[in-house]
């Protein structure tokens, strides 16, 4: 198990769900200036091949439907990283009619980066922290989603029509 965790932590394929302003900080993080590939993290195109889901900023309800869909397609173990204050409590969209306020009500989040907008250094820092957590076997928010599936579904159904938008979850 330890070996498994170790290997898992050294090779993270991430899908960055480019919502909000955070997507702007991803190109410098990915490319040569900050170069996250040295930590074994590479961008991946589809959720079915990735381990890490980045939510880069505010989510509207319309996007949340797609995020939940993408999240449910990812193979376990899967990790979620929330960017910026918008994912924590709505940030500057705290009274917006269309932006969700707390991301962790709808999908479980392993680690948050605060700031508006977090710099690439902060993002790299979060990756390192996440890597540590995975190696120690601490990053198991994805288990929460499976164990408390009904609770998450209930929260989701408060903001959108879950029936229409869910896919069958293969646990």
């Amino acid at each position, binding site marked *: 198990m330890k070996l498994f965790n170790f290997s898992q932590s050294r090779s993270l394929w991430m899908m960055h769900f480019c919502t909000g302003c955070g997507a702007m900080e991803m190109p410098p993080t990915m490319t040569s200036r900050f170069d996250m590939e040295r930590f074994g993290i590479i961008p991946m195109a589809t959720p079915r091949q990735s381990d890490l889901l980045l939510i880069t900023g505010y989510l509207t*309800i*319309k996007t949340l*439907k797609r995020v939940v869909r993408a999240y449910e397609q990812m193979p376990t173990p899967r990790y979620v990283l929330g960017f910026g204050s918008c994912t924590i*409590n*709505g940030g500057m969209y*705290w*009274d*917006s*009619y*269309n932006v*969700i*306020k*707390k991301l*962790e*009500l709808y999908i*479980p989040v392993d680690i948050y980066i605060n700031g508006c907008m977090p710099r690439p250094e902060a993002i790299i820092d979060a990756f390192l922290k996440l890597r540590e957590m995975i190696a120690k076997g*601490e*990053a*198991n*928010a994805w*288990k*929460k989603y*499976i*164990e*408390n599936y009904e*609770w998450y579904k209930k929260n989701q159904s*408060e*903001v*959108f*029509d879950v029936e229409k938008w869910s896919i069958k979850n293969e646990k």
Partner: protein
Amino acid sequence: MLKNGVLKMKNEEQIKKDIETTFGELVKVHIKRRHRIKVDAPKNMTLPILAYLKQRGFHQFTLLTCVDWIKKGMFELVYNLYSLDYNVHVLVSTHINRENESMPTAINIYEMAFDYEREIHEMFGVEFEGHPRLGEFLLEDWKGMPPMRKDFDTRAYVEEKFNVKDLTKELFTRKEQPYRGPGSNG
């Protein structure tokens, strides 16, 4: 406006004169500043003015906006046109009632108006007569009052939709922690 000829507004004045001679008393034309003209038109004169301006050289339909003058009970629709030849913006503004009044669509003159009209229909609830595809555009599954109207109470809506008791307090202080399931490490 400077007198020594540094800021000449030849184009602007010519266009103003042309509109006034064509439409006479029906519309009011103001030169707001250099490169900017505002035309106040009644509802039934708006489309003729757009058509006239288009053949006068205003080929670019930049934007259609809407302003909600709730105290007057009016929506103001502003058609933003631009001409590369003259380097002049023309804002054609018209007022319609907030309730039960529709506006004929401008897509036969400027095709660009298509999506702007859809957006304004969705955000303000303005009906555009003759538009083939008013309906869901940016918002999804939206029911109730369009969100950009002044009488739409955003905070009340948010408190109800996201199940928050007092928005100004709860989201900032986060007293009540979200549920930590048995699988959590915290």
